[in-house]
């Protein structure tokens, strides 16, 4: 009995102490896979770790390049870029930030186990040219280098060495290290608590070098996979922001007096990929040959998909069917190229018969069920569409924690993926998704190993072309080749939707980044 007043007083004291702090509680469909910023090139992973770690060059609210850890950058020769680094910045543990950290981090991002190699593949050398200046030399002229650096975060050399985290966490091989669970960046937030798949807490970095627009002191991030549970958490006030909002619940949330929904187009393109490399598919009843090597089969699959009905029924109108691997808003997107082959099941059946599969065949389709908007439903609809042309799809849907490692190992014959060119430039889609895979990082996400040497050549040219008009023409040509080959089957660009309490202001960029430094709770 004597204990109770003490506990009460303690609780009171605690709540008073916290009363001034502004907490933002965020629920997302999934969790960042690791706290290591080089471990997975995926939007949620990057936007979340981007609160703790920072790149040299970042983006402002209008998506224009903004100085972050570099204050200035210029091209000193066609293949050399010089970056002046910000002075007086220190990591969360107090270590000052210097050129050594940048050289180390870019090497780490380019090295073994890193998922960021598609950004660093054009690099020849990264050199320190002063305590606060570096130079990056590229293999060929590389005009969009600063854009490419926006997602490569800088870690502390000393901290990584002390914590045996010099090599990135490799999710594919299931290798974890300290950087999975702890973080030491220069960003506006520090990592306070990390419980994978359960709860991650960030607190404001009091010694942050820059100005923070928002007023949030603490962010509690909770993954809630089940859509109705996530919506219920928002309705009951348990969380302040949810992302994404299930399309079916948008109306209901809008009608609530305390909540609002923010919707807009997303730069992400959802597409299907097919294994075009193996001589025999891993998951199919066709033995001794790979049907996807035949363009007619790929085209049959393409034309069998009724994208408009998927839009109206599965996506409830919130999608933009696409013929290209990039959407509007990406540099190099040309609207007149964005014309899908018509949906035509009869033509598809005919193509399949011509290719030697009059009765269709069986193939496994891998699909995440908690990554993209209605991803598993899209796959089910695709399976139903393909059934009409005689193709039996063995659908396997699973959570992204098992899905991504599996398909990144290329353990798939047919898969669904979404891609946002993180540089807002078509070159990123070309080099990551469409170029022939190499061990240098090109085609790192070309999981079906589609390959056309002409496209590879164009991709290299686009990388170094500085004249915007010529560059766009080259991009157009490359897209033409890819569309002609049916290298992938583009589906649509999904719409972004997040919901929050009316007193919460967040900035969500079209690439789905939602930096907490721009969040305000009134």
């Amino acid at each position: 009995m004597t204990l109770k007043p003490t506990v009460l007083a303690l609780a009171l004291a605690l709540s008073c102490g916290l009363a001034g702090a502004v907490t933002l509680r965020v629920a997302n469909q999934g969790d960042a896979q690791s706290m290591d910023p080089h471990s997975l090139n995926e939007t949620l992973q990057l936007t979340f770790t981007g609160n703790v770690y920072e790149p040299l060059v970042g983006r402002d609210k209008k998506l224009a390049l903004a100085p972050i850890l570099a204050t200035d950058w210029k091209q000193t020769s066609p293949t050399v870029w010089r970056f002046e680094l910000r002075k007086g910045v220190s990591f969360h543990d107090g270590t000052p930030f210097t050129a050594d950290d940048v050289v180390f981090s870019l090497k780490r991002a380019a090295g073994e186990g890193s998922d960021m190699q598609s950004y660093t593949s054009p690099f020849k050398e990264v050199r320190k040219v002063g305590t606060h200046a570096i130079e990056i030399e590229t293999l060929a002229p590389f005009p969009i280098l600063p854009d490419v650096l926006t997602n490569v975060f800088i870690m502390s050399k000393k901290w990584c060495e002390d914590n045996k985290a010099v090599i990135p966490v490799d999710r594919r091989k299931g290798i974890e290290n300290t950087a999975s669970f702890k973080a030491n960046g220069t960003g506006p937030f520090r990592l306070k608590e990390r419980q994978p798949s359960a709860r991650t807490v960030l607190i404001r970095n009091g010694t942050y070098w820059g100005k923070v627009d928002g007023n949030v002191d603490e962010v509690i991030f909770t993954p809630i996979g089940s859509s109705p549970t996530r919506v219920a958490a928002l309705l009951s006030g348990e969380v302040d922001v949810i992302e994404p909002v299930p399309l079916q619940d948008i109306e209901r949330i809008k009608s609530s007096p305390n909540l609002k929904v923010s919707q807009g187009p997303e730069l992400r393109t959802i597409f299907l990929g097919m294994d075009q490399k193996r001589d025999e598919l891993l998951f199919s009843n066709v033995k001794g040959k790979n049907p996807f090597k035949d363009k007619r089969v790929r085209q049959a699959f393409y034309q069998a998909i009724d994208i408009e009905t998927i839009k109206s029924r599965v996506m409830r109108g919130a999608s933009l069917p696409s013929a290209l691997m990039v959407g509007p808003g990406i540099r190099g997107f040309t609207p007149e190229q964005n014309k899908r082959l018509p949906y035509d099941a009869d033509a598809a059946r005919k193509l399949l018969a011509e290719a030697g599969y009059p009765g269709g065949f069986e193939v496994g389709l891998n699909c995440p069920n908690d990554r993209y908007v209605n991803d598993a439903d899209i796959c089910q609809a695709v399976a139903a569409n393909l059934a009409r042309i005689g193709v039996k799809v063995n659908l396997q849907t699973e959570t992204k924690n098992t899905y991504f490692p599996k398909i990144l190992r290329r353990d798939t014959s047919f898969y669904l993926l979404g891609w946002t060119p993180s540089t807002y430039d078509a070159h990123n889609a070309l080099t990551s998704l469409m170029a022939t895979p190499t061990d240098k990082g090109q085609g790192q996400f070309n999981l079906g190993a589609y390959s056309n040497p002409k496209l590879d050549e164009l991709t290299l040219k686009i990388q170094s072309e500085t004249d915007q008009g010529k560059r766009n023409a080259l991009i157009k040509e490359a897209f033409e080749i890819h569309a002609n080959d049916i290298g992938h089957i583009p589906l649509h660009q999904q719409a972004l939707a997040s919901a929050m309490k009316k007193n919460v202001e967040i900035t969500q960029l079209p690439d789905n980044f939602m930096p907490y430094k721009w969040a305000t709770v009134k």
Partner: protein
Amino acid sequence: MAVQALRRFFDGDLWYSFRRSPTAMTAALVAFACIFGAVFAEWVAPHNPMDLATLELADARLPPAWLAEGSTKYLLGTDDQGRDILSALMYGSRISLFVGVASVLVSLVVGVSLGLLAGFVGGKTDAFIMRICDVMLSFPSILIALLIYGIGRALFPNAHETLAFAVLIIAISLTGWVQYARTVRGSTLVERNKDYVQAARVIGVPTLRIMRRHVLPNVTGPVMVLATIQVASAIIIEATLSFLGVGVPPTSPSLGTLIRVGNDLLFSGEWWITVFPGTMLVLIALSVNLLGDWLRDALNPKLR
């Protein structure tokens, strides 16, 4: 022979007690209707929701026929992929019933054999088997099923659909055998010391034969009751696993899968997608349970 057996059944106590119990008769009727719809789904159901080629995505999420936007083509409405709910219920309960009955059979065989062995042989064997039972009983069955299912899928990561079913059945049956083993062991301990068993021993009948021919028939009563009730709980475990998204493949929906799909749409007013499969699950589980209860009372001489 068969006629005689039937006559004996209808003249017997069981039928008499059945006729006098309205609960049992109603339950049997409901269970019969469910099983009939499930077994003869091909002929009874208006559509075939398992045949992906016949699905009309354009008809997705239509309400039941009696509501404003409903269509008589789909009596109970459609789900998010355009499956007819009524047909999906029939095909779905077939999967649920199949998994339920199959896993009960497997756990029955395992449980009864181990129970007989433990009760009849006794000693260390008995202690060993019973300790395993204790350990199993200390975990919630759904947890064990999840664990076994997880291990199964990890061992065969690229399992074909049929193998996925097998793993599911094994996962459920391995959680259920304990009940049988305990029940049978108890009865066996009683029977073991009865005169007829002693007599058989004295004349030199082999142990296995005694267990099978003499003890087993005398312990089946309680096992039958248990099995009936376990069918209901197996169906519910299957539904729970499918609800959690780890059960049957999404393209061949069981009742649990249907409920999960509907659950996502609960807030948006499309209630029929979850309410009908939910009701179906309750009906099956309840009727089978009531039948089991009645059977227990009817077979228990003390309650007569």
